[in-house]
């Protein structure tokens, strides 16, 4: 039931959640693509990347800190202290995964987070009204649901990147395996 419920419920409740302005902007189409490019260019111009390490900082890192708990909701611990430690580890793992991607892809990921770090773009594309530090889970989940089946390919692919990066990093960690009944790889004498 849990799994089938998600889509239908969010579709029914979304229009009642006071997000009309967001939906209006999302309907504006090409602007979103423009903003994604501009956000990335701005981020890259103001954040010089060290030659050997993709790293998120400031508002971009805060965006990931706000988005990851929505994607991992149901897998993260309820205890606040444990939850924070788990999130920290997952976000470090996301950054490590990004550093394993080719340079061109790293720049695309940086474009995405650069966009999310820009206040007007955040408001218009995600509908998250406050800064990422104080974004609530419901707002974040709502924009992810929209991006997931958005009519623009670019937004769907941005959702796909967040989905794969965060869930991939989470389930790569042995600490996540007990909850899903995976015993880990067998022992082979080597």
């Amino acid at each position, binding site marked *: 039931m849990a799994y089938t419920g998600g*889509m239908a419920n969010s579709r029914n409740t979304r229009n009642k959640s006071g997000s009309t302005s967001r939906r209006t902007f999302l309907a504006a189409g090409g602007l979103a693509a423009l903003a994604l490019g501009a956000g990335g260019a701005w981020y890259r111009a103001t954040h010089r990347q060290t030659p050997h390490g993709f790293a998120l900082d400031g508002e971009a890192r805060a965006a990931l800190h706000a988005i990851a708990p929505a994607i991992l909701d*149901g897998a993260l611990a309820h205890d606040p202290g444990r939850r924070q430690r788990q999130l920290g580890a997952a976000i470090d793992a996301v950054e490590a995964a990004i550093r394993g991607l080719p340079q061109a892809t790293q720049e695309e990921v940086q474009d995405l987070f650069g966009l999310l770090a820009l206040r007007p773009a955040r408001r218009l594309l995600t509908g998250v009204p406050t800064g990422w530090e104080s974004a609530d889970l419901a707002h974040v*989940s709502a924009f992810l649901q929209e991006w997931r*089946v958005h009519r623009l*390919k670019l937004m769907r692919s941005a959702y796909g990147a967040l989905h794969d990066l*965060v*869930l991939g990093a989470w389930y*790569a960690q042995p600490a996540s395996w007990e909850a*899903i009944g995976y015993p880990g790889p067998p022992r082979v*004498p080597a």
Partner: protein
Amino acid sequence: MTARIPDPIEAGLKRGWRTIDASTLEHDRTLEADVVIVGSGAGGAISAEILARSGLSVIVVEEGPLKSSRDFQMREAEAYPQLYQESAARKTADKAINILQGRAVGGSTTVNWTSSFRTPQPTLDWWRDHHGLAFASNDELAPWFAMAERRTGVVDWLVGPNENNAILRRGAEKLGISSAAIRRNVQGCWNLGYCGMGCPTNAKQSMLVTSIPAALDNGATLITRARAERLRLRGQKAEELVCSALGADGVLPSGRELRLRARHFVVAGGAINTPALLLRSQAPDPSGQLGKRTFLHPTVISAAFYEKRVEGWAGAPQSVYSDHFLSRDPIDGPMGYMLETPPVHPLMAATMMSGFGEQHAAAMRDFAHLGGMLALLRDGFHDESPGGAVRLRSDGSGELDYELNDYLWDGARRALLSMAEIQFAAGARTVQPAHEKAQRYRSWAEARREIAALPQRAHVTRVVSAHAMGGCAMSGDERRGVVDPAGRYRGLANVSVHDGSLFPTSLGANPQLTIYAITARLASGLAANLTGRPAAALA
């Protein structure tokens, strides 16, 4: 203490193999050989063994690292960044298809799931009739298949399938759909289920433990962590291959450069990378087909949950297939598809599973009961299946632009229906196609109704590929083929292409054995041509 598993790479290095890890270079280097081979996968390694045994000096250059059984720890977090192109997250230009390709010594053969098929007869017939490839017949190719099967230890897999594969066999049987066992290139397989992360016991007879060691024992030089940037051309000839050394991270260039000079160059970087190298080199393209007609076997996925534990991570990952839906219609009719199963490991399963938050977590809690099924769509045989085109990004790296069109979506929808029906017939409690709008269906009747109505769109339907093919099509007709039937690049006198990029269409079966057999034939012709003597055979 248990006996240690013998490591043929470690042993070879002790014997004095010539290898250069380019990430350790402190100066630029220039090397020379009779033949320089780009890529150490199925095509490159087979070519290296034949050319080296035939007495030619050979350099093999590989972008990935040299890893061996003791490095293969069966952990996705290590294996994907280490052994796959783009950390196993390579994607088409619009990100709608995730492409798995190896990037390590042995190429994709180091990480494939061991499925060993001879090229299906209808595909060979099509190549002969439509692409001017006279050699594309069973009679002509049988000895090459036999040689490749001997070399890579292809056997009938007599161990019972794991539950994930038994489901495909059982469900198909209930519905009167034919299925059969997949032959595998293994010797003394432990049936662990981690083929995709590098075989930890060296049972898989990949290029890493067969032809690469043979080439090195015959004097070849292996250069790893070096990216082939461009062939320097003069007139109709390639003079040298310029490579950039990668840093220890294997991602960014270190600044060191290698120049490799040779009489002849064999490009075997796999589909996508091979055409990209030729495009960067501004190679002549008289047919206008370089990089075009790149095929993927676009693959759709159906998950199902069973009462009984499936434990899809354990046991030979791919041991049962059904080609029923390839043979039902003419090859150039509605898109056909091959049914197989994937291994089920946490990272890959979690990223393939649609949705997020509690709904995703709930599905993952049923991980041990999850069975996966794949449908590989056979592309390239219909006017509306032109494949994709490789192009260069602004930084010179290659990427594939592949449009998912209505013809393909029709096949995807039928494939999702077939898989759901088989999964319910095999006893699934619920079935969920990998699709953003799909739900967990509770009966075949519900699934049939709902799947038929699902919108099929890029990103909304999850599409993956483990078989990149084409882009340097081989053809007897010079207007249609980048490469001639001898594997020679048209427009360059001393360049050959020996990998899956040669295929003029997809195959309708997993490609490793086809690449082995065809490149063994081409490399033997090349060796004879360069030495004036008959070529040596593979071991």
